[in-house]
């Protein structure tokens, strides 16, 4: 009866108080403000409150700058990515929702659905994606140029911000890796090495199969953001149909029909007709001490995606792309066929698993790898194998694991008799949702042991 309402974005702004201290010039501090429909006075007021809160909290020497403000009607999250630059996101907590007859308005409070750790992660992601394409805020000597770039980036970005389906995975912001046998993995590495030695212009390479990463030559922190961008934005736009099956082809033939020959997704996308190089995105990697600018060339064949990172000062020609294509295409296609064969042998399609089987999320902080049988696809659309409530409880557990030392275990039984388990050891985190009513604590802990043995072979969990 009550229409499900989504968490709404109230405002989103970026400011730097050091730009001006003069009264009457407050508007100058604001580098970006959404929505533009907010009157200038309202903008100044909102920034003023944030400044007040920053100063007030600093009085008590907290371990980190202010993270969030909770009020009855809204939640405000703060992130200071660079000195004096603050990004602020405010979310509505209450929404008017109408019952079917439209007579009674029901005020719905979303307060505890908004978990700070989840939405803080979203806020940080937005900055890292901006930085990936437009470099740091500080790198702009001209404030107006920065304002233009912020506008250009955040206007569309905020429209696509997936507030309703954010969950614990956003906290991890992890990467899905594809485990291969030694032989196949070596072949991938040979392929990458061969390319990099044939074309010294190519500084780094990353290799993906469907939405799984097999090889990356860049720092994990950079790869994290690029991975999200690839999986979340670039690839779906290009190969929607191909990705649908995930890494586990449901009907064997379709994914392999898509592309018989590889092509560039960025750069000259159609080499035969191309007269110019097309649009070639640049991005900034921060793995080293300072940012380095690269061309971002993405090539796709069958279910594989290869990313080339080429120094931005390199002169690129159409010929270069043609040669590269000739070298890559045949090799890649045979390699992908081999990977696909290996995968089809290894992976059990999720539809085979019974519904009551435990669903889990695994995250390794050391290599940022994650695996989830809770999420049925990679698209953040809320297509989940367990309830949203369970997801939130996992995020609750995650929030507290820091208090429990390096290795710990939490087992919770919810009001409707589901069990949610969190396990941390060796920088690995493992979250399980078990839908076994009437189970006892003893049975659940046995079940977890079994699951760790079958799913996480070779990972040592400390006894505590």
């Amino acid at each position, binding site marked *: 009866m009550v229409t499900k309402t989504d968490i709404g974005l109230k405002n989103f702004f970026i400011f730097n108080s050091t730009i001006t201290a003069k009264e009457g010039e407050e508007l100058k501090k604001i580098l970006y403000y959404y929505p533009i429909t907010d009157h200038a006075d309202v903008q100044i007021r909102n920034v003023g*409150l944030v400044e*007040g*809160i920053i*100063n*007030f*909290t600093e*009085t*008590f*020497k*907290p*371990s*980190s*700058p*202010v*993270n*969030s*403000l*909770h*009020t*009855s*009607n*809204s939640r405000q999250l703060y992130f200071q990515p660079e000195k004096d630059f603050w990004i602020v996101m405010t979310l509505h907590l209450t929404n008017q929702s109408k019952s079917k007859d439209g007579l009674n308005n029901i005020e719905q409070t979303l*307060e*505890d*659905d908004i978990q*700070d750790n989840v939405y803080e992660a979203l806020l940080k992601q937005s900055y890292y994606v901006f930085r990936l394409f437009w470099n740091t805020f500080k790198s702009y000597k001209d404030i107006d140029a920065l304002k233009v770039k912020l506008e250009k980036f955040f206007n569309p970005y905020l429209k696509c911000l997936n507030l309703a389906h954010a969950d614990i995975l956003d906290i991890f912001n992890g990467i899905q890796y594809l485990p291969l046998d030694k032989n196949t993995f070596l072949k991938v590495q040979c392929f990458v090495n061969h390319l990099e030695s044939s074309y010294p212009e190519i500084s780094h390479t990353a290799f993906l199969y469907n939405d799984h990463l097999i090889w990356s030559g860049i720092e994990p922190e950079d790869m994290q953001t690029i991975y999200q961008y690839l999986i979340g934005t670039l690839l779906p736009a290009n190969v929607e149909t191909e990705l649908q099956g995930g890494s586990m082809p449901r009907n064997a033939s379709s994914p392999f029909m898509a592309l018989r020959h590889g092509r560039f997704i960025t750069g000259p996308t159609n080499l035969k007709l191309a007269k110019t190089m097309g649009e070639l995105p640049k991005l900034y990697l921060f793995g080293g001490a300072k940012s380095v600018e690269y061309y971002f060339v993405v090539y796709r064949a069958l279910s594989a995606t290869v990313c080339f990172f080429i120094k931005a000062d390199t002169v690129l020609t159409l010929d270069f792309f043609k040669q590269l294509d000739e070298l890559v295409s045949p090799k890649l296609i045979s390699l992908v066929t081999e990977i696909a064969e290996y995968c089809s042998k290894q992976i059990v399609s999720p539809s085979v698993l019974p519904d009551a089987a435990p669903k889990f999320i695994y995250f390794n902080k050391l290599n940022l790898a994650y695996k989830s049988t809770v999420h049925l696809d990679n698209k953040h659309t809320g297509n989940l194998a367990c309830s949203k*409530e369970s997801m*939130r*409880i996992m995020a*609750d557990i995650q929030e*507290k694991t820091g*208090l*429990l*030392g*390096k*290795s*710990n*275990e*939490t*087992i*919770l*039984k*919810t*009001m409707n*008799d589901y069990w949610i388990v969190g396990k941390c050891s060796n920088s690995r985190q493992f979250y399980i949702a078990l839908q076994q009513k009437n189970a*006892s*604590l*003893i049975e*659940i*802990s046995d079940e977890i042991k079994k699951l760790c043995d079958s799913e996480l072979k070779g990972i040592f969990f400390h*006894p*505590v």
Partner: protein
Amino acid sequence: MSDNIEIDPGAARESGLVTTDSFDNLERMSSSLDEIKSTNAISQSEESNDNANIEQLDESTNYVKDSTEENEIEVSREWTSKSKHIFVLSQAGKPIYSRYGNEDKLAWLFGVMQTLVSFVQSSDDTIKSIHAGDTHFVFLIKKPLILVAVHKTQESEQQIVTQLNYVFNQITSILTLTRLKKIYEQRQNYDLRRLLTGVERLIDHLLDFSEKDPSFFLGAVQCLPLTSSVRDSISSAIIAACNKIKNLVFAILLANNKLITLVRMKKYCLHPADLHLIFNLVQASESLKNSESWTPLCLPKFDASGFLYGHVSYLAEDCQACLLLLTVDRDVFFTLSEAKQRIVERLRRGNSLEAINEALVSSDANWNGAGFPELRHYIYKSKSTAQFYQPPIGPPYSLRPRRLIDVYKRSHQRLHSSTRPLKLAFERSASEAVLAWDTRGFELYATFEPLTSTAAIIASVGKLLDWVKKREDKLFCLNAPTF
């Protein structure tokens, strides 16, 4: 439901304490006092006396000039590293209480807090909390006051709000809510500290008390273990001495922060939150030990609009249990003093004083020998009586009992989260394994050796419940006697 009561240890059909969730906002105002007064036809003239003080308020205008202080204050490292600051201010931003540091020197900070509150209020919203790394700022707006906690502890916002509510209630218990509101209606800028001299000490004590005692987050009271025959004979001694006295609402006997018995007027129950304030008053006032005292006391949960009057005294030189006789009559000190003498005589004759003394010194250390090798400590709360039992805290927590309390607070907050409550929470870390279990009749929190298997834990818990059941009439006040 009824068979459940039979089974759960410590359960009883009737309770002298209001059973409650610990997190309710203490908002409800009852009018118990008026009821009692009108049924017993007390003259209404007393009200005018209550107002006498307020009329004098306007005389003084010399409050501290805060503008000049602004630059003088140096917020020291020691001050900022305190694990929990508590501030109380008026809606106008006047300092009333600061747990650490001098309020006058911190006037600027109170100003900032008031500004934040009113700034958010101006857009029809209410500020609740701010989070910055390890430091959390919790705001509680209870007209006419604003209470703020700045803490670096791991307590939840709910638990902090509960604590702030206690501070508010402590202030109300001195002034009554009616008077507090009236003061600010008449003068927004009033400096309340002038009426609260001596109360800082009570608040200080309350804060320390509520941080180290589980009764506050559990919303329950611990009883002094006594065999039921002894407890009953104590209750009947009190009843025999007092049942002729009109308007006596509660007789409370307590020792060492534990309840011995509570005798009440029919129909009226005492809320654990009010009882905690009484415990705090008794514990914080050394002077009570020396003589009988007569003190007005407002119990905000019972009736926030007016005072009860309490005859407070320790039983005897050789028995350090404190007896409170609470009445609505303001001038019956001598009647109650006589009643107390009669109670003590009867108790002495019945050898109850010795029994109380024995219970006070016996540390109950032998529980560990009862066959729970891996169980370190536990808390059992009987929901239907709002009472709990815990054995004395032993190793490895003897030196840092606060650590154990923190563990229990975390478990309690997991079970009782406002939106995602749980039935059971088990957590295992390198330091301990903790099982928290919420059922219809009881809550159990048990701490084990870290490597105890879940099978052993479940077996222990089963045994433990049997053990508590066997001793329930000793550990809990199962009767709720009335005058």
